[in-house]
Every structure is written in structure tokens, then in C-alpha cells.
């Protein structure tokens, strides 16, 4: 199997396992899911280093969402202090 296909399939399996695992623990915070997806995506992308047709839109999107969530969390903590 070529590396590109293996990359997509690994990503699919990892995302499914993460979702099932977190929902089994009754996790209700969407940011936890998205953060883990981002971490998983970057780890698997670094592992397989696939070729992309265009600029890595997914990576950039996940990174921005992750940054937004971290910023909101920091603001939340600061506002309670």
C-alpha cells in the first residue's frame, strides 16, 4: 500500500479511536476533542510526511482553532483570578 493512502487510513483510524475513547469517558468539552484531533493530525503528518497538492489547509485550520481555544482558556483563568 502506498504511503499516501496509509496516511489517510491511519488518520481515519486514529480519529475514530479518539472519538470513541473520549465519548466512552463521557467527555462533553468539544475543545478536548478538537485539541486531540490537532495533536493526532500533526503527529501522524510528521510520521508519514505526505505530499500535499496545496498548502496544508487542515494543519493551519487545526492550529488556529487550537490557538483560539488555548487563548480562551487563558483568558478564562485570568478573569477568575
Amino acid at each position, binding site marked *: 500500500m*502506498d*504511503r*499516501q*493512502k496509509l*496516511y*489517510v487510513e491511519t*488518520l*481515519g483510524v486514529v*480519529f*475514530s479511536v*479518539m*472519538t470513541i475513547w*473520549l*465519548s466512552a469517558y463521557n*467527555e*462533553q*468539552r*468539544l475543545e478536548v*476533542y*478538537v485539541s486531540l*484531533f490537532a495533536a493526532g*493530525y500533526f503527529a501522524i503528518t510528521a510520521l508519514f510526511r*505526505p*505530499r*500535499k*497538492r*496545496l*498548502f*496544508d*489547509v*487542515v494543519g493551519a485550520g*487545526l492550529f488556529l482553532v487550537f490557538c483560539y481555544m488555548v487563548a480562551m482558556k487563558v483568558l478564562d483563568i485570568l478573569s477568575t483570578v
Partner: protein
Amino acid sequence: MNLTRVREYLHEDVDQYTAAGIGLVVFGALFADLAFLILLSVPLTALGISCVVLGITTVLIPKNPILASNIRSMIKGSCLNIEALLEEFDAEERCVYLPPRDGRVFAYVPLKAGHGLSNVWQAMEAPIRVVTEVGGEPGLMIFLPVSNDMLSSIGGDSKAEEALSNILVEQLEFLESVKEAESGDKVVVRMSGSRVETDLPRFKKVLGSLPTSIAGCVLAFVFDKPLALIEEEVSGRVITATFEVQTKNG
């Protein structure tokens, strides 16, 4: 972001993986909205988001996973044979790029001085052999390392600059950009950001540098007329090549 690349990509045939990716994106987006707004379920929303991420990733995966740098190395390697052939026959004259015959574009290299342009129409009728005879004079037919599939992907009604950009910038990644201008029977091609450098003096003298020789093939294919390489100027990573389109009465 390179808009030409985006345009090319959107015009590509949708393969199975791309179709699956688009399907996943649409399904994931709808499912995430439904789960978040109506079902009020965070795990199902996350499942929808994961489908969107997976779908976009699938769409972004290219059909052809071969690196352009590998293709460049292979093409550079194949030029060694041409260099050896030109050395062997002591070819000195500039070549003429001939339009496709049996789907292949090739270059005619006269072995005697001053017989290149006068024999060009006879060369188009000559038997396709490496060593050939055109109008009683010896010559070489050089098959350049640009494949039929690559040229046929251009399409018959493409403009020259578009075709050059497709082959040299998008497919082979030889250059960063290419510009083409026509004035009468002269065609000037300015190739910027060249990524290939070949130390093949005879090849350069007869066929021009590797990007120029590929450009010659592409132009001969697009114009469907013979093109003579008139001059080539290399300045750092910028190559300016001038071709002359041959017409029967010219």
C-alpha cells in the same frame, strides 16, 4: 498560494479518493451541524468534525505521489545519453524542434553547418531514426526526455504560455515561473527560478539548457510547426530563449 496550481487542480479529473474526500467533507459538515444544534451531542459533533478533517486531508493528497525532484533527477540522467550521442557525432549546429509525428516531438540536429533551417521541411518527412539523412545531408533525430503523456496533457487548444507553465512549472517543477512573448515569427521564453543545472556542454550548445529544450518541445507541440533555437541567454537562475517559428514560405 499559486493560483495557476489551484486552477489546474480544479480542472483535474476527480479520482476516487477525491470524490470520497468531498463526500466526507459534505457529510461531516452536515452531521456536525445537526449533532451540535439539534442532537446537542458533543461526541457526535466531534465525529462530524473528524470527518471534515479527514475529507479535506483526502482531497489534498495528490494522485501521483512521485516527487518532482525524482523526476528531475531521472530526466537529467537521461540527458547524459544525448550528450554522449552529440559528442560521438561531433554535433555543433543548433537544433530545430519538430512538431509531433506519431505523437512524439523530437529535435533535428544537422551534422553539417548551414543545413539546419534549409532542410527543416525535409526533416519532417525523413524516416524517424537517430541517425538520419535529410536532403542528402547527415543529421540526428534527438528524442528529448519529455513524455507523450506529458505533452498530451496540455491539450490541443492551449496557449503557449499556459502549456509551458503546465509542463515546466507545475509538472516538472523545473522553474518558478515562465513568460512567453511572440513577435512575428520569433518566440521569446523567459524562464525564472531555474532549479536544474546540467553540466553538459554539447547538450547546451546544440539543444540549449534542459528547460529550454523542454520549452522547445512544448512550443513545437503547441504551434504544430518547426521551431529553431536561435539564441539562449543564461543569467543566474533566469534563462531567456529565443525561438523562430519556421513557415513553409519563410
